[in-house]
Every structure is written in structure tokens, then in C-alpha cells.
């Protein structure tokens, strides 16, 4: 199989506003796709369309050759594609461990198995120490990590990360970057929305740039930073 995800001419309209218009691109297994674009470009909306939270107004989303339109988010998750939230959504009154277990339970009915999987994922994001804390009381950095551990526990094949580094300090961001790279080593396909160009350049194999809902450019990281249109719309003259 050549591609794992095919986005074909996806458009999403809110009333008269085209949040996505005619976006197409594909991902190969094991790659990391960077998704960037100015605020309001339609990145989060695209995630919503891919994962079943919004039905696309037009176009198709194919995951592993299966047409995803009309599937519910839970079905999408079971097929192996899962997303994080730009605005983190911890299950506040459950413990950190329980949060991750909820993710793990997507693949098992046994609490014991789920607990082991969850502990393993907490290990990965280095939060084992916080396992019995209530998720609602975590600081933002740890919430973001929890968010990642939780989706990892669903054992996805394709991971969609929506600004998981937003609001983190460089040290914490670095941790996440390492995590993403580790996951790629293990063969996990990822699509990453991020505004931190330094990070996105380091991790992405390819980058798609959205602007006003349309795909502005696609290419290797170096191509993108040198693309005039991208510089004008998004990066400004110099790259950070």
C-alpha cells in the first residue's frame, strides 16, 4: 500500500465561509506530515473533517483505502486514526492513569491489560509519578503530555497532533519533539499542526501549508521555507 491517508478535494463550509476548500494531499506510512498555516487557515477544521467530527461538505477522506466520510469519531479511532485537541480536554475528575486507561480500553476489555498499556504510555511521556493525580489539576504542560499518552494508548497507526507544543517552554517542547521522533522510529505515521517553525522543520518529512482554507504549498521542509508565497502569507521575511 503506497499511501495510508488520502485527502481528496475536501471542502468544509460554515455558512458562506469556506474553512477548507478543495484540499488534497496524501501521506505514506511512517512519515511525519507537518501542517502549518496562519491562524484560521483551516488546520483544526481539517482534523475535524478527517476524524469524523465534521462531515466534509465535499470530497473524500480515505484511510488505509477505506472511505471515512460518514464515520463517527469512535469508528475512526478503532480503524487506527486518532487526534489530540488544540484545547486540551483532560477527563478532569479522573486520575491521570484512568485517563490513559480510557484510551487503552479501545483495544481491550480487560482492565488489567489496559492498566499495563496505560502505565507503559505514561512511562513514554515520563508521567508515571503523576499516575494517581487528578487530571483536572495538572499544569498545562503535563496536560498536553497526558493528551499524547492517552491517544497513544489507543494504539493508532496514524496520529494527528494539534499544537501539542503550544504553551510549552523550550525544555518541555524539546521533550515532545523527542517523543514524536521516537514514535516515528517505531513506525507511527503522524500529522502535526504546530506554529513553532523550528520544531516543525526538525520533525517533518513533508509540510502542507494551508491558507484561507486552501492548500498553498506542499513539499519538503526546505522547499517550504523558501517558497515565496508561504513566506509572504505565513513566515514573514526571516525564519526563526
Amino acid at each position, binding site marked *: 500500500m503506497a499511501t495510508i491517508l488520502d485527502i481528496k478535494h475536501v471542502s468544509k463550509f460554515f455558512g458562506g465561509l469556506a474553512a477548507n476548500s478543495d484540499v488534497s494531499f496524501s501521506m505514506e506510512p511512517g512519515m511525519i506530515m507537518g501542517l502549518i498555516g496562519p491562524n484560521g487557515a483551516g488546520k483544526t477544521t481539517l482534523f475535524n473533517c478527517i476524524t469524523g467530527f465534521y462531515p466534509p461538505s465535499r470530497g473524500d477522506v480515505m484511510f488505509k483505502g477505506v472511505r471515512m466520510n460518514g464515520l463517527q469519531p*469512535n469508528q475512526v479511532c478503532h480503524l487506527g486514526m*486518532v487526534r489530540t485537541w488544540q484545547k486540551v480536554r*483532560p477527563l478532569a*475528575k479522573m486520575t491521570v492513569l484512568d485517563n490513559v486507561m480510557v484510551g487503552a480500553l*479501545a483495544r481491550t476489555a480487560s482492565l488489567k491489560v*489496559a492498566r499495563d498499556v496505560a502505565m507503559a504510555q505514561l512511562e513514554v511521556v515520563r508521567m508515571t509519578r503523576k499516575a494517581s493525580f487528578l487530571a483536572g*489539576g495538572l499544569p498545562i504542560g503535563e496536560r498536553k503530555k497526558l493528551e499524547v499518552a492517552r491517544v497513544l494508548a*489507543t494504539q493508532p497507526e496514524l496520529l494527528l497532533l494539534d499544537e501539542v507544543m503550544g504553551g510549552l517552554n523550550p525544555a518541555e517542547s524539546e521533550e515532545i519533539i523527542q517523543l514524536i521522533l521516537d514514535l516515528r522510529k517505531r513506525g507511527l505515521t503522524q500529522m502535526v499542526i504546530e506554529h513553532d517553525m523550528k520544531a516543525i522543520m526538525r520533525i517533518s518529512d513533508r509540510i502542507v501549508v494551508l491558507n484561507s482554507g486552501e492548500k498553498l504549498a506542499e513539499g519538503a521542509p526546505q522547499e517550504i521555507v523558501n517558497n515565496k508565497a508561504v513566506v509572504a502569507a505565513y513566515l514573514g521575511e526571516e525564519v526563526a
Partner: protein
Amino acid sequence: MNQRPLPSRSPRGVAILELVLFAAAVLALWIFPQFVKKPYVLHMGVILFLAIIQGQAWNVVGGYAGQYSVGHAAYFGIGAYTTMMLLELNKIAPWWGLGAAIANGVLLSLVIGSITFRLRGPYFVLASISMAEILRYAFLYFKGFTRGAEGFLVSEIPTLHLFGQDVEFITKRPFYFVTLGLAVLTIIANYAVQHSKLGYYFQAIREDQDAAHSLGISLSFYKSIALAISAAFTALAGGVYAMFVKFIAPDIVFGIDVSVQFVLICIIGGIGTIYGPVIGAMVLVPLSEILRNPRGLVQIGVLSPDSKFVDFVEAHLSNAHLLVYGILVVVVILFAPDGVVGLLRRATAGLRRRRAAAQEEPGAAGA
């Protein structure tokens, strides 16, 4: 408070202690009628156990899954009517009727769920009320089928032949054992749910539906499961209730006050816990009974017949029992918003903290 490590499960020692206490309590209640035979006392026991079943039932969908149904009268009523109509019209014994009641309750829950679960928050609350109201009006109106406001009065409950013994449902005793048994059953079932995948999924749905959805949880499926479990117990309670009070009519079993009662038991006790409904029932049932009928205390033998208390309550509060009830609700919500269980938990936490205060290093907050 938020960052205090909270064990997700009780440590093993505590769990065993709880189990032993629970078994002891059940045993004590089981042999209780050997010593106390007053029908009034047993009557109150039955009402209490029914309230526990109701509370546990609501807790599954309201407490764990976070879907605040204020329309549980629908399942209660369906259970009551199913059992009663089978008995009165088809002469089918209530122990079979209860099975049918559960089936109908579950069926109804699927219908109601498919309508109301698309709604969230206040819309869900109000839609659930409407469903119960629709049933109430329908049962009032379609007299040919339901006898309307006239309702059903039990003529006679057949004798149950069980293990070579005849159980006659005339006195309160058999009802006492039946409801006690069912209450224990519901508690165990609830415990099992809470300690299974279902429990985790229900709570995830309560905390954040969208997040749960994205983690592979089918909202419609698991909400329906929660409601079905809840409805099954509720319908069962309704059926037993009908047999016990021996009279039902739409306003009695489908009324909003019935629905509110479900919620109240849980809130007063503590929502989303196993103890909550038990404690809630233990507070609410005696209290409303004493206010309505202080003489009950005399009958139990707690007070002497010429007690000043009874006179006082009769003279000043008997017209006002709902007023006192209302004040109580307001006070609980304002001062014990997590119910009695929350109150106890806070008290014990406070104790533990004071004890631990010495060792605790300051500034351990930020991570």
C-alpha cells in the same frame, strides 16, 4: 486539593474491610425481621430498600455517565404498569411480570435514548422530563388500555412456590426480603459496572463527550447501555413498588416528583459513588416519613405515645412537611454540595491532612 494524589482504587486492605462490613450489614438486615416484627418497621424497610434501588439505578446513568435524566419516572412507571397489568388483566404472576417489566424498561430506554441522547446539557434534562410527561399523559388518556386515572388496584398476589415453600405476599415480610435482596443485587451490579470497562467509559463520557468520542467510545452505544442498565433496575423497582403498594395510577408512577426523587436520593447521598444512594436513601426516607407522620416514631417504639416531639411536629410541621423538605434540600445543596458522602470525605481528608501536616514539605505544589 486538585493535585492531591487520589488513589484510583481503594488499597486492598480497605477493600476487604469494606466487603466484610457490607456482608455484615446485609446479614444483620436479613435476620432483623426475626427480632422486630412490627409491620410498620418492615414497611419502612421496604420503602428504604426501594429507594436504594432507585438511587443506584439513577446513579448509573446520572452519576457515572453524567446524563442527568429527570425523567426516570418513565421507566419506573413502565415497570409498575407492566407488572400490574399482566397480573390484573392476564393473571400472570408478578415474578414473571417483573421480567417483562425489565424487558419493557430496557426497550423504552432504547427508544427514549435514541431521541434524547442527541441532546446535551439542559436540553437533555428537559427532554427527559418530557418523555416521562408524554407517558403520563398517554396513560391518563388511553383509558381503554390503561384505565386512565382510575389506575390499577391489586386484587390478589398469587402464592409463590419456592423450594417447596409457600411464600404468601400478604404481610410485609416477603416484600422485606425481596427488596433487600434486590437492593443488594443492584449494589453488587453497580460495583461490577464501576469496576469494568463500562465504568471507565461512562465516566469518560461524563467528563468530556467529545474527548471520549475521539478515543474510540461510541457515545450513542455506551450512553444507551448506561440508560438500559439504569432503566432495567428502575423498571424492576417500579414493578416491585406496584406490588407492594398495591395501587398505581399515572400520576403516582409517572409524576415529576417521582423523577425528582431519583435525583434527590443520589444528590443527598453523593453522586457517582456506591455509598451515595444508600446514604441518600437512609437520610431521605426516614426524614420525609417522620415529617409526614411523626407518629411512626411512636410505632417503632423510639418515642413514647405522649411525646412532646410528636405533638410538636403534628401541631406545627404536619402541614409544612414539604416546606421543611424544601428547606432541607436547599441547605444540603448549599452546604453539602457533594452530598453526605462528600461531607464525610472532606471530614476524613481534613483529619488525614492534619496528621500528615508535619511531614509535608512546603512548596511541593508546582511540578
